[in-house]
């Protein structure tokens, strides 16, 4: 927590920050009610997380994205775990009335993030390349094209790999 700041990382931060901001906005691009949630919140957190983690040097943009997606995965899984713990305690969320009358969207769409994370670890063991695509796309929020660029593949290959990874994970989480 009170680790002395690493000058190398500090020097990199403005660039890291800009990059994460771009990455985070791709997260929320498709979100319907995103106006209340700007990418800066997530970006800011990733930035701080990187600041506090071990010294890292980003060799290039791809390297940075690789680390950023991993960090995001870790943050999101931790969050999901904390939220799950709260829900086990039975927290009744406060909602506006029309929200409460609508069918519970999150319940039907909601996914067990911890279980997915563990399944992804198992996939990493047998198929690191496809697991990486899931990490970049699902946790890192990259589009097919962005993922293809990062991994130096054709978008068509990314799509085919992605389909297989999804099938495998869906079977694991059944």
């Amino acid at each position: 927590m009170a680790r002395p700041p690493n000058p190398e990382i500090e020097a990199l931060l403005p660039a890291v920050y800009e990059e994460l901001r771009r990455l985070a906005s791709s997260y929320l691009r498709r979100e319907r009610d995103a106006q209340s949630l700007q990418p800066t919140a997530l970006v800011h957190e990733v930035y701080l997380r990187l600041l506090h983690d071990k010294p890292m040097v980003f060799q290039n943009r791809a390297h940075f994205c690789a680390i950023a997606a991993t960090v995001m995965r870790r943050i999101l899984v931790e969050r999901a775990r904390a939220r799950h713990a709260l829900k086990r305690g039975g927290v009744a969320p406060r909602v506006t009335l029309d929200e409460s009358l609508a069918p519970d969207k999150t319940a039907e769409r909601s996914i067990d993030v911890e279980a997915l994370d563990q399944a992804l670890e198992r996939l990493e063991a047998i198929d690191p390349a496809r697991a990486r695509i899931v990490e970049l796309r699902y946790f890192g929020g990259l589009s097919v094209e962005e993922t293809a660029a990062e991994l130096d593949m054709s978008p068509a290959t990314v799509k085919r790999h992605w389909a297989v990874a999804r099938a495998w994970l869906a079977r694991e989480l059944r």
Partner: protein
Amino acid sequence: MSDWARVSAILERGLDLPPAERDEFFSREAGGDAAMLEELRALARSYDRAEAAAFISEPLAAAEPDLVLNTLYPGQRIGAYEILEEAGRGGMGVVYRARDTRLGRDVAVKCVAEGASAPQRARLEHEARMAARLSHPAIATVYALEERESTAGFGETQLFLISEFVRGETLRAVLARGPLARTDLDRYAQAIAGGLAAAHAEGVAHGDLKPENVIAGAGGAVKILDFGLAELRRGTAPVAPVEALAGTPGYMAPEQLRGQPPDPRADVFAFGVLLFEMTTGRHPFAGDRGAMLEAALSSRAAYDTPDLPAGVAAIVRRCLSPDPAARFASGADVVAALGAGAPPPADGPAPTARSLRWFLVHQRVVSALAAAMPVVMWIARPAFGRPWGSLLFLLTLAGATVVVALRLNVDFVAREHPADLRRHLHAVGRRLWMAELALDTCVLGSGLALADRLDWAAAVLFGSGIASIISLSVIEPATTRAALRTLSPRQPKQ
């Protein structure tokens, strides 16, 4: 795993084909390997399921934006406050435990996300102003409302509410372990009602009272949090409502559900739900959200249940009335009702000498009758033969002693401390009832056994037994009602 390499390569090509052609393709590629064919088919089915359910089709942060609402990180400083850890998440923001480095104490820092919408910011400001009006041991004290430029730059500002940090757990966490013990129940109910009374006296209605918003402090303190939906009223007109319709289903009063802004009587309704939950460990409106809303609107609640003591039931019933006018008018009235002991004055005033007259007569007659039983048994003892006569006599003596002692005790309390009679009857009533029933059973049985052997004793015992049972089931409830001047002492009908 070369196996997986082969399977995944075949699957990849198969998934590109129209579903109708897949199976044939898989069969051809798998050759004679039945296990591989089965795996390919299973994965293809999983793929179809994933497509249909849009499984992980959206990035996680977009699908579940609340996972990224958190904006502070342990170690980060906001002015003089150093963030220590996340302490909780509410509907609108995240609460952190932080250290006030100037004053050397822990505080709670509540913030809404960076770039939060204007209504969210307005609500936090509103909460701060509402809570700042109040000073009561059962209400978390607000220290400051701070605004600062976000560390992210871009000209955004972030709003923080700094308040008293209460180490402990939410009432929700306490309730997850089951109903509260009697002493805790009294303490919690008194504290929460007291906090509401203080708020209502200032014209503030909380508007979102629920177990998540009550903290049971480690030191025994009970505090109400989150005045984010509070309403300020001067006279009868609400001042500056933040949002037309918000709250928590299951705790909102019917009129609140119909869109009225919260007022003290809506808080009283929520308190009734809380009191029921604290007493029974269950929510009074069973079922899912829809059923809860419907139950609250019609007040079709399951609160008339045997596990609710009569006194609590009366308070709960009054709090949960669908008609606001039939509820306690404010927290102060609830405090008064709770203070009158478990059975509330709402159900009837303290007994007077006049109302106690027949009750006392009844106690003494029944005591005399019980005292006479062992005497008859002693005389009739030889007719039973050995050793039954002595055993039955001793049993009767024991039962009669317990009954007479408890009845004399009730008689004493009724004469000397009439205000405590209700509580006393609640405490000993059940034991007295069981002891007397046992005595009556013993006497009735003995009467039957003596028939044709010692008829006069059989008649006396049998008759007394019947009379005593009738007295227990019919006469005593009537004299008790008369003494307490209530409609019914136990489980009254709606």
